[in-house]
């Protein structure tokens, strides 16, 4: 379920990202367009100030202009005139013939704002009157703005507000939309999760995407049926094998105990009995593995004392006459007697037994196995270590992988591990614990199993 939420959170964040990128690209484009237009612009940059300074009047009232004025005007294809206060042209340069030589004040007012007979003009006050510089027709667009300052301000704020509002609305709509999709899709994704975990799936097949939900339900049922069939099959085999195996074990024991027959035959009887015992353990493990895998084994959890669990397992080994080639010791601190965990006592005992058996079967005579109960960051750690041959780094790597326990066989058909360890793994998981395989020093294998303590 976290995955689903994560997905939609990421989706939403990426949407915000997309909108941000969209705005940034647009801003960049706007800047590019403005720059391009500006560089294309042929707006005559007539230095009106310079021209004004170059036009002077002598004491007799004659107006003179420098040669520079003519050059500038020619370059820009413009013209200039100087009006006195009465509106009469008292000086001109390249002025079109069609233009009148005197202007009324209303005409002046008009062209200073707009155009003079279609010529865009610039005006500047000159000591002798008004300097008017005209430019080629249609070369310049003139407009005048005179508005209230507060109006401009509120307009600018309004535009900014509008952009922000738009952003907000887009975000809210996207968020709402994402939530809607999430609501429709989440049950389906949850259903798939449930199916993957092998639990029964039952989605309500109304609402959005009901068809997909219905199909998922059907697929889930199919999977369950197959799992059930597989489990029944394993259960059936392990059941049917019990009676014949009873006969094998029974008669083998008879042979083993019969002092009237040759010793060699008795030894063979013992071998048959011992191997039969292994088959017995195997089918019990197989059945339990299958039941735990499909959560069909009711866990009989109660408050138990880990040290006592370890004691019972060790005692059982010793009571059954531990093979003299192995040594089994239990190490525990004084305080560990007070620790309690929650678990199924028989399963936890089975777990420890299997790990110890694993240590014994893979090691030569004379190995010693040490079982200890420790405490580590709120978990109770059962540690089972031996001083035997141990594992290679590669093996350790595989044994610490979760996938390893789910796969029974390599591609070659070779078995990767016994049911014993698989059962151990499942029992650990059923108790919310962790298992770790490590090197023991100087040699051997150390297995630690952490099971959480009861809260409080």
């Amino acid at each position, binding site marked *: 379920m976290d995955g689903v939420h994560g997905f939609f959170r990421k989706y939403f964040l990426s949407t915000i990202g997309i909108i941000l990128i969209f705005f940034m690209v647009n801003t960049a484009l706007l800047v590019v367009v403005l720059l391009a237009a500006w560089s294309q612009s042929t707006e005559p940059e007539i230095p009106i100030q310079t021209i004004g300074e170059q036009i002077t009047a002598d004491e007799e009232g004659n107006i003179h202009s420098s040669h520079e004025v003519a050059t500038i005007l020619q370059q820009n294809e413009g013209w200039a005139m100087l009006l006195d206060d009465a509106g009469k042209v008292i000086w001109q340069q390249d002025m079109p013939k069609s233009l009148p030589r005197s202007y009324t004040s209303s005409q002046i007012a008009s062209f200073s704002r707009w155009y003079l007979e279609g010529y865009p003009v610039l005006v500047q006050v000159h000591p002798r009157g008004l300097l008017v510089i005209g430019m080629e027709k249609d070369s310049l667009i003139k407009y005048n703005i005179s508005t209230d300052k507060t109006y401009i301000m509120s307009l600018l704020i309004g535009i900014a507000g509008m952009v922000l509002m738009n952003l907000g609305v887009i975000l809210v709509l996207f968020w709402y939309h994402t939530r809607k999709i999430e609501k429709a899709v989440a049950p389906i994704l949850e259903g798939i999760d449930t199916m993957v975990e092998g639990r029964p799936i039952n989605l309500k097949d109304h609402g959005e995407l009901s068809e997909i939900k219905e199909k998922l339900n059907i697929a889930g049922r199919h999977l369950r049926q197959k799992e059930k069939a597989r489990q029944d099959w394993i259960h059936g085999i392990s059941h049917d094998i019990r009676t014949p195996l*009873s006969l094998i074990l029974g008669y083998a024991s008879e042979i083993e105990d019969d002092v009237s027959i040759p010793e060699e035959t008795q030894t063979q009887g013992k071998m048959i009995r011992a191997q039969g015992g292994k088959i017995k353990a195997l089918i019990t493990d197989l059945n339990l593995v299958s039941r735990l895998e499909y959560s069909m084994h009711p866990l009989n959890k109660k*408050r138990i004392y880990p040290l006592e669990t370890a004691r*019972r397992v060790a005692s059982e080994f010793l009571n059954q006459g531990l093979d003299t080639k192995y040594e089994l010791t239990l190490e525990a601190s004084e305080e560990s007697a007070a620790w309690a965990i929650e678990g199924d006592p028989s399963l936890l005992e089975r777990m420890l037994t299997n790990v110890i058996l694993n240590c014994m079967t893979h090691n030569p005579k004379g190995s010693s196995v040490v079982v200890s109960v420790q405490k580590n960051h709120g978990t109770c750690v059962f540690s089972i270590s031996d001083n035997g041959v141990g594992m290679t780094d590669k093996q350790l790597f595989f044994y610490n992988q979760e996938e390893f326990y789910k796969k029974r066989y390599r591609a070659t058909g070779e078995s990767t591990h016994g049911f014993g360890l698989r059962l151990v793994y499942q029992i650990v998981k059923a108790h919310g614990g962790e298992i770790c395989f490590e090197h023991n020093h100087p040699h051997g294998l150390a297995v630690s199993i952490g099971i959480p303590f009861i809260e409080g």
Partner: protein
Amino acid sequence: MVLYERSILIVEDELELLRLLRAIFAKAGYTQINTASSGEEAMAMVRSRLPDLVILDVMLPGIDGFEVLEQVRKISKIPVLMLTAKGEPEDRFAGFELGADDYLVKPFLPKELLLRVQALLKRAYPEESRRVLLEHASVNLDTAEVKRQKETVALTDKEYTIFLKLAENANCIVTIGALCEVACGEIWQGYENTLMTHIRHIREKIEINPSSPVSLVTVKGLGYKLLVKEAS
């Protein structure tokens, strides 16, 4: 009556296994062994003459083992041991709920079956005096009296409970937890020191030198073990 003279009824539909079971008990010394291969046959035999103990398979043609058990329980409290291939917890619970005294899942080792049957018989038909013979003393389990050399002392209630548990598992390790459990119930944590006191008191009664015990020995870190020379 001697243990081996008790009559046993074995109900099992697999004839090969039935033959093996009969052989196992015959070899162990049991003299009165009857067999049945169906539920109906078993019920008929139970009604005609009540056996001292029944070994019952679950999967039987006709009426099954659980039904037979139910019917037997209506007329008697004789010990019944279920011997079955059905080993799931549900099946075992069902068996015990119907009144089975023990439940052994196939495949089994003959020795285990014999020991369980023996224990059931002993519990159901206590001998005149159940005695446990130790290195330096003998304990009468019915009177909780300990005879050491010429003196006789009695075990207290708690001591007796603990001793009985040890005697039932004679020559085997009994864990500290298991002993605490019989003495004070399932929540026994914190009882360990009291248990040690009880063990010391038992030793004072059954050992000549309690500080170096030879009968009730400590198995370091695990629990205790009662070394029995002979039990009846």
